[in-house]
């Protein structure tokens, strides 16, 4: 479904990577590895269409990405918190869904937050939460936004042992439901199988 061929990226004069090829089918996931500065985040941003590639192409379901179809099937969580500090976790989830044109009722939003271990925190402003809890608010979007391809950049940062295990379970569940994932991480990931790509 996802096919990447000959992808290249440079920052200024420096070539970060070139000729990156991989393909992912349903139920498969890719672990992008590499030293600091190897271009893992650049690859992720290129993949989701935030920045243009120097060379190569990305195809999603046979069509050239990025397209509206691709964005509908995609969820990308990057380094940023991507939550509003002045809003509560519940408002953050529901407004993010509304911006995507999805109606998310309070019950499903609450269920997602509870699954992420934020019971009792749903009506506090996000700015009073800890870094790990903010990360969990963001991760709750994985449950509320239907998407086939998950692109998670360093998603395991700032998470405690329990949350790492939980995110591993969520990804495994997603792969079991015909999903796909591209992850970057320096740690070994608690998800079985998976292809590896070293930059």
């Amino acid at each position: 479904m996802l096919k990447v061929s000959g992808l290249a990226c440079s920052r200024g004069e420096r070539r970060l990577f070139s000729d990156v090829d991989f393909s992912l089918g349903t139920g498969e996931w890719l672990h992008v590895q590499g030293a600091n500065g190897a271009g893992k985040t650049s690859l992720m941003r290129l993949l989701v269409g935030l920045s243009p590639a120097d060379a190569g192409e990305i195809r999603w379901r046979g069509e050239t990405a990025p397209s509206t179809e691709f964005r509908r099937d995609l969820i990308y969580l990057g380094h940023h918190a991507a939550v509003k500090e002045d809003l509560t976790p519940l408002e953050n989830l529901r407004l993010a869904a509304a911006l995507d044109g999805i109606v998310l009722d309070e019950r499903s939003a609450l269920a997602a937050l509870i699954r992420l271990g934020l019971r009792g925190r749903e009506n506090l402003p996000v700015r009073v939460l800890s870094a790990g809890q903010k990360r969990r608010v963001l991760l709750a979007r994985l449950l509320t936004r239907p998407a086939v391809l998950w692109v998670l950049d360093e998603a395991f940062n700032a998470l405690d042992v329990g949350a790492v295990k939980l995110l591993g379970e969520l990804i495994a569940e997603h792969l079991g439901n015909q999903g796909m994932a591209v992850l970057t991480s320096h740690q070994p990931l608690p998800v079985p199988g998976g292809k590896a790509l070293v930059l």
Partner: protein
Amino acid sequence: MNPLFATVRRDVLLALRRKSEVLTAVFFFVIVTSLFPLGIGPEPVLLKKIAPGILWVAALLATLLGLPRLFAADHLDGTLEQMALSPSPLGLLVAGKILAHWLLCGLPLVLLAPVLGLQFDLDPSALGILTLALLLGTPLLSLIGAIGAALTLGVRGGGVLLALLVLPLYIPALIFGAGAVEAHIAGLDVGGHLSLLAAMLVLATFFAPWATTAALRVALE
């Protein structure tokens, strides 16, 4: 819910949680326009003559105050990135943000202008024309300003650059907006001025969200 109105709702909600940002621009407008009558003294003829220009220049500067924050906060916390990747068209979300900016920053100026105009001894019909001109002109200021805010996003010292970029583009709105009130005071027809303001508004409504979106995509790269 339509993504456009969802964006408006989100930005209005955020502004209500952090009222100081909205109130700064409104108080700036009130104070600047009040300083002139106090400084010049009780000279009704002079005050009446300079009133349209002063109210319009103050409105331009008050609009400019809130512009650097239009996209900066969303850019910083990564929500702008999420908007760019949303299945909803980014142009629609950007239009929502501009509409919210006008509701929070432009509309209060329109509503306050008739009250502040009293300090300049403007008669009721002149106040009406002033309000109408601002009602057509302030959305134009938000639309043009959004292009500048997107172009200077992430640039160090972007605030000053934004002013240098946007203020010259505000000149047509200033000329026809203030000109409408001056023409009315002089007993001339104001239809031409207001029609030109409305035409510029229509043009900007179609063009500005598109240009802003293109500039934001470059800033996000």
